[in-house]
C-alpha cells in the first residue's frame, strides 16, 4: 500500500526522515523507557525475539529483561499482572501478540483495568498501555486477522488509539504511555513495514484530535487505521472524475473528535465511514449515528457505513480479499452518494 503524505503540515518536511511503522513504535517505546524508569514492556516473546513482527527488536539489549519481560503464554495472567502493576506505581506496556487474543483478556481489561478509577471513586488508576494489532488480508485466517477495536471502545474507561501511519504510531504511543488511563492501541499488522516521514525531534500527538489528511468539498471519507490509505486512494480516483473528497483520520476513537467530523459533514453534506472492524454494531455505525444526530439537516444523503463483512475472516485469498473495503468500493459508493442514487435507498 502506498502512503500519501503530501498533506502533512507539521512539522516541516525537511525535519523528517522516513521510518517504518515498526521502527516508529520501537522509537516511541525506547524514548519513553529512557524518560521514565517505571515504564516496562510485558508479553510473549517480547525480549530476545522482539515479537514475531520484530517491532521490539533491540529494546531488551538496552533495557534488560527486567523491563522487557518475556512471559509464559498466559494472556489473562500477564494482563492481570499489568493491571496490578499499574495500580501500584509502574507503567506497563502490555504486548498482546494478536488482537484476536483480546477475548482471552477481556475480564482483566474490561472488568478490572477499565473500572479501577471509577469504582474507587477516583482514588486509584491503572495507567497501562495495551499494544496489539488488527487487520485482515495476511492469509492468517479467522483467529489471527480480526479487527476488534469496537469491543473495547464500547467499554467506558478505556481509551482507544488507531495509528494510520508511522507518524501517528509514534506520537500516539508516546501520549498513551504518559496517559494515566488504560489505553489500547491497535496497530495494523500489514503496515509494520510501511514508511512515513517522522520527525527526528520528540513529538506527541494529543488524543481526541482528528487529522484532516486531505481537504475536499464534495464528500467526507472518515477512515481509521489502514482504511485511511484506502480512502486516500479512493479520493485520488474520485479526483480524476471531478469529485473532491475530504479524508479525515480520527486517530483515536475514544476520545473521538466529534467536532471535526461533524464540521466536515456539515461542509460536504455527504459522508462515508470506513473501518476494518465488522460492519454490524461497529465503529462505522457509531460515527454515522453521531453525524446523523448532529448534522442531520446539513446532509444530502444517508451516511454510509463500510466495515469488514460480517463473516469470520476466511483463509482463502480469493475470499479474504473481498471482506475488507477497497479504494474501488469506497469510490463506487461515493459516486452513488454524489449522484443521488442512494438518497432513497432505505
Amino acid at each position, binding site marked *: 500500500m502506498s502512503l500519501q503524505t503530501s498533506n502533512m503540515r507539521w512539522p516541516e518536511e525537511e525535519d523528517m526522515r522516513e521510518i517504518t511503522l515498526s521502527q516508529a513504535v520501537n522509537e516511541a517505546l525506547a524514548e519513553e523507557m529512557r524518560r521514565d524508569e*517505571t515504564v*516496562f514492556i510485558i508479553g510473549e516473546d517480547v525480549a530476545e525475539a522482539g515479537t514475531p513482527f520484530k517491532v521490539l527488536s533491540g529494546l531488551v539489549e538496552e533495557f534488560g529483561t*527486567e*523491563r522487557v519481560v518475556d*512471559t*509464559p503464554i*498466559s494472556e*489473562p*495472567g*500477564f*494482563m*492481570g*499482572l*499489568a*493491571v*496490578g*502493576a*499499574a*495500580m*501500584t*506505581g*509502574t507503567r*506497563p506496556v502490555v504486548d498482546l501478540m494478536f488482537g484476536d487474543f483480546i477475548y482471552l483478556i477481556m*475480564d*482483566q481489561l474490561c*472488568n*478490572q483495568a477499565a473500572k*479501577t*478509577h*471509577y*469504582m*474507587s*471513586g*477516583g*482514588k*486509584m*488508576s491503572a*495507567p497501562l498501555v495495551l499494544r496489539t494489532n488488527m487487520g485482515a488480508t495476511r492469509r492468517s485466517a479467522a483467529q489471527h486477522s480480526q479487527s476488534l477495536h469496537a469491543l473495547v471502545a464500547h467499554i*467506558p*474507561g478505556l*481509551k482507544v488509539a488507531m495509528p494510520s501511519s508511522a507518524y501517528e504510531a509514534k506520537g500516539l504511543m508516546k501520549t498513551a504511555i504518559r*496517559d*494515566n*488511563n488504560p489505553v489500547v492501541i491497535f496497530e495494523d499488522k500489514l503496515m509494520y513495514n510501511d514508511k512515513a516521514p517522522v520527525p527526528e525531534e520528540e513529538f506527541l500527538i494529543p488524543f481526541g484530535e482528528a487529522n484532516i489528511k486531505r481537504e475536499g468539498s464534495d464528500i467526507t471519507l472518515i477512515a481509521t487505521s489502514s482504511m485511511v490509505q484506502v480512502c486516500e486512494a479512493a479520493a485520488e480516483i474520485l479526483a480524476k472524475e471531478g469529485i473532491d473528497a475530504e479524508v479525515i483520520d480520527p486517530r483515536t476513537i475514544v*476520545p473521538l473528535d466529534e467536532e471535526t467530523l461533524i464540521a466536515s459533514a456539515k461542509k460536504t453534506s455527504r459522508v462515508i465511514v470506513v473501518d476494518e472492524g465488522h460492519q454490524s454494531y461497529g465503529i462505522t455505525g457509531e460515527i454515522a449515528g453521531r453525524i446523523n444526530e448532529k448534522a442531520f439537516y446539513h446532509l444530502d444523503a444517508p451516511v454510509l457505513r463500510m466495515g469488514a463483512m460480517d463473516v469470520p475472516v476466511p483463509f482463502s485469498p480469493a475470499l479474504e480479499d473481498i471482506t475488507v473495503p477497497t479504494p474501488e468500493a469506497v469510490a463506487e459508493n461515493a459516486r452513488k452518494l454524489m449522484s443521488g442514487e442512494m438518497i432513497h435507498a432505505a
Partner: protein
Amino acid sequence: MAKTKTNTEDYLRMYRQMVRIRSFEDNANQLYLSAKMPGLTHMYSGEEAVAVGICEALKVTDKITSTHRGHGHCVAKGANFKEMFCELLGKEEGYCRGKGGSMHIADQSNGNLGANAIVGGSMGIATGSAFTAKMLGKDDVTVCFFGDGATAQGLMYEVMNMAALWNLPVIYACENNGYSEYTKTEEIAAGLITARAEAFGIEAHQVDGQDVLAVNELTQDLVARARKGKGPFFMELMTYRYHGHHVGDINREYYRSKNEEKDWKENRDPIIKFRGWLVEQGIASEDEIEAMNAEVKKDAEEAVAYAEAAPYPGQAEVDMHVFTDVKHALA
C-alpha cells in the same frame, strides 16, 4: 493456641479487630434485612481470624487484594467504620464515593487495592502489585485473599507460575470456608489445594484459620521471607462462613446442615476461642473484654447512624472518574 506476639497490646488489638469485623458484619446484615442497604453483600463472620491474623503481620505499606467477601479484609487492614458503612449505603463519604459498594470497597490509604466481584479476579492484580515492589526495589509484600471457589479459575495458575518464576513477594491466601458459593468445595476441587501451588515449586501451608495466633505466626514468617525475595508463598486457611453465600442465602439446608453450622459457631468460633485464651493467660479479664466488646458495638452503631444520615453523591457525580483527566466524561 500457638504463641507469636509477646506484646499484650498486640493481642488485644488482634482481639479488637476480630470483634470489629464481627460487629461490622452484624450491622451490615441488619441493614440488609431491614432493607436499608441497596443490593446485596457477603458476610465475613466466622472467618475473622484469617483476615486479622494475616493483616496484623503486615505493614501499612504492604498491599492486599480482597474479594466479594471482603469487609473483614478491609477492617483488618485498617479501615474506618464510617467510610465503610457510607460505602455500603452508597453515600458520598464512602471509601469509593459510593461508586463501588460492598463488592468493590477499597482503601488505598491502608494498602487495600480493593475487593473484587469476579471470583479470582484480583489474582493478577496482587501478582502485579508484587511485581511493582520487585521492579522498584521496595520491600512491600502483597497478600492475595481469595476463596476456595477461586481455585477453580485458570488465572490463578497463570499468575502463580509467573510469581514463582520471578520470585515475586506475593502470598496467596486461600480462605477455604468449605463452600464454593452453594456447592461443597469437595465437589469442585480435585486433589489437595496446597498441592496445586506446590506444583509450581511454591511453598504451601495449611493452617487452622480459626486460630488467629497460628495464622499470625505463619504469616509473619512468610512475610519476612517474602520481603527478602524468597516468595511467593501459599497458605490454605481452613475456616467457615457463618452466613450463606450472600445475605439473602437464608434457606441453605439443601447444601449444608444447621448442625454443621452450630458446631462451628459453638466449638470453633475464632473470637470465643481467642477470648478464652486471653483470659486464661491473664492478658485481659472478662470485664475488660466485655468493655471492649461494648465499645466496638457502640462505635459500629454510631457509624451506621452516621452513614444513614450522610448524603448521597449528587447526580453530577455519575460521569466523574470515568477517566483520570476528564472531569465529566459525558460533558
